[in-house]
């Protein structure tokens, strides 16, 4: 009996042991090290030294003088709200259309998901060619006027990149929402249809309340994207993005990428401080939004 129990314990250990060690090393230790970095400075000669909140102060001082932090905050929030409103809203409307099997729903489902299958790199490359060469060419042929490449126009490029990121984001959301909607009991829908409910009312009063747990999960998990979403900027422009287009996701990625070339620990410590600061904002925000949605979300009754 004891031998059997030992065998079970060994089996359990063999399944969870190594992944748990990986978790300790690659999650706990890495994040601990990240906190350490945030409170350290680095000098090539003297190495690391504790420097209190100096790295955090630097974030607010903006040593580059390009308002990088201000623009990052502004653009990250715009991107999040845009995605939340039109991305999530659109995904729910499209999912409902597909779930109700309206005209062409199977075809639309495939084409909504295809941008997730085709790499973002490919889609960006095509988008750049069309906007920078194709449309100016058409414009010249139709109106006889030469247009500047659209993605180089200051007034247009942020909006165009924002639109692209919305377009690319529907696939997985639609897949998940459609899958959840397909679990709604047909008898509930049938009885509402007998009462003459319109598709829009059915969406608002039946479908949305029923899929609300999925909605809450998406919104909750998505809060952190305020600070991690790059808006495909690195794919579009590499490291040459003007500071007024920065998002926090892009800033973190670009700075860390450039720092790895020479293992620039000074940048590492600064970026770690920024990461910690954003985490401190993201955690209560995530929990707060989750609680808010659970408290004030639609009731299935």
């Amino acid at each position, binding site marked *: 009996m004891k031998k059997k129990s030992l065998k079970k314990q060994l089996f359990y250990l063999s399944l969870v042991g190594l992944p748990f060690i990986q978790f300790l090393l690659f*999650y706990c230790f890495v994040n601990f090290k990240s906190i350490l970095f945030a409170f350290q400075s680095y000098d090539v000669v003297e190495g690391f030294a504790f420097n209190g909140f100096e790295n955090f102060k630097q974030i607010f001082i903006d040593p580059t003088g390009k308002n990088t932090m201000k623009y990052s905050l502004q653009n990250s929030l715009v991107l999040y709200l845009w995605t939340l409103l039109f991305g999530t809203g659109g995904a729910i409307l499209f999912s409902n259309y597909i779930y109700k099997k309206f005209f062409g729903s199977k075809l639309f489902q495939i084409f909504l998901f295809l941008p997730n*299958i085709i790499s973002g*790199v490919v889609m960006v490359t095509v988008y750049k060619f069309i906007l920078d060469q194709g449309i100016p060419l058409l414009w010249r042929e139709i109106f006889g006027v030469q247009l500047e490449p659209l993605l180089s126009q200051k007034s247009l490029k942020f909006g165009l990149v924002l639109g692209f990121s919305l377009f690319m984001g529907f696939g997985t959301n639609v897949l998940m929402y459609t899958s*959840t909607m397909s679990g709604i009991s047909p008898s509930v829908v049938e009885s509402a249809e007998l009462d003459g409910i319109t598709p829009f009312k059915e969406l608002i009063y039946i479908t949305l309340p029923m899929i609300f747990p*999925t909605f809450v999960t998406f919104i909750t998990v998505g809060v952190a994207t305020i600070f991690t979403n790059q808006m495909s900027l690195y794919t579009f422009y590499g490291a040459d993005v003007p500071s007024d287009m920065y998002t926090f996701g892009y800033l973190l990625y670009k700075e*860390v990428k450039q720092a*790895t070339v020479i293992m620039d620990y000074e940048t590492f410590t600064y970026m770690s401080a920024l990461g910690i600061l954003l985490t401190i904002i993201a955690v209560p925000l995530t929990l707060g939004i989750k609680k808010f949605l659970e408290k004030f979300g639609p009731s299935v009754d």
Partner: protein
Amino acid sequence: MKKSNKLSFNFIITIILSIITLIVMFAIYWVITTSLKDNSDFRKNFFGVPSVWMFKNYISVFENFVLDVTRDGVILQVSLFPDIIVNSLLYTVGGSFVFTLTPCFVAYAVAKFDCKFSKFLYFIVIVTMALPIIGNQPAMIDLLYSLGLYDNILGVWLQKFNFLGMYFLVFYASYKSLPKDYSEAAYIDGASEWRVLLQIMFPLVKSIFLTIFVLHFIELWNDYSVPVLYLPSHPTIAYGVWRMSNSVVTGMNTAPMKMTACAIMVIPTIIIFLVFRERLMKNLSLGGLKE
């Protein structure tokens, strides 16, 4: 009145979906036709079908697509075939396998063994999903560097060897929903724990395993940001195409060549999508329904 409301609501959604569909169709058409033009044809004929179908562009990209990378302070040239393709397969297949198998096995242990440590592991998954940690890449790079695993495929596989995230919950829910009768009958017949897992339980979730593996495969095949950061001298195809699309100095810097590289990159994922379309389009849900 009601009928007209119904029509207008659906009509607007149909129009929007049709526009999205046309844009995606056009993007695919444009990649394929541009990849089959020569550069002068492309300049004269931006949107149309090729005047001469240049299938040899594909051979040309396979033969001439090289990238300069710096490894251990030395500048090396890596070619599309075999270097970049091999790197892509190692990153994509290896990474997807590890990334799918780990939550699959840990979820089995947590679902089957109702002990405090299992509850703790489940708690870890929920907490790490709900509480995001941002900007820890410098510390991750430093750790990999210290372990001698930076710019090494093993380092990336180790990063993927984690059970955290949504798919743990998908596996966990699947194992929990399976009846215990099968495994109990096997235990009575003297089967070992491993045998029960591999020959009885795993086959019952293999459909979900395959779906998640395919989703990871597509994600990793298309991903250039992780290889750029963690495998700078081992470019994958996404990394290569990204470098090519932003480059102005290579000899391959023409739209038809760039689109040929894009097409080569897209073909495997499109094939996989067509084969597994039905599987991908259903059976994955997150969060569930209200009772």
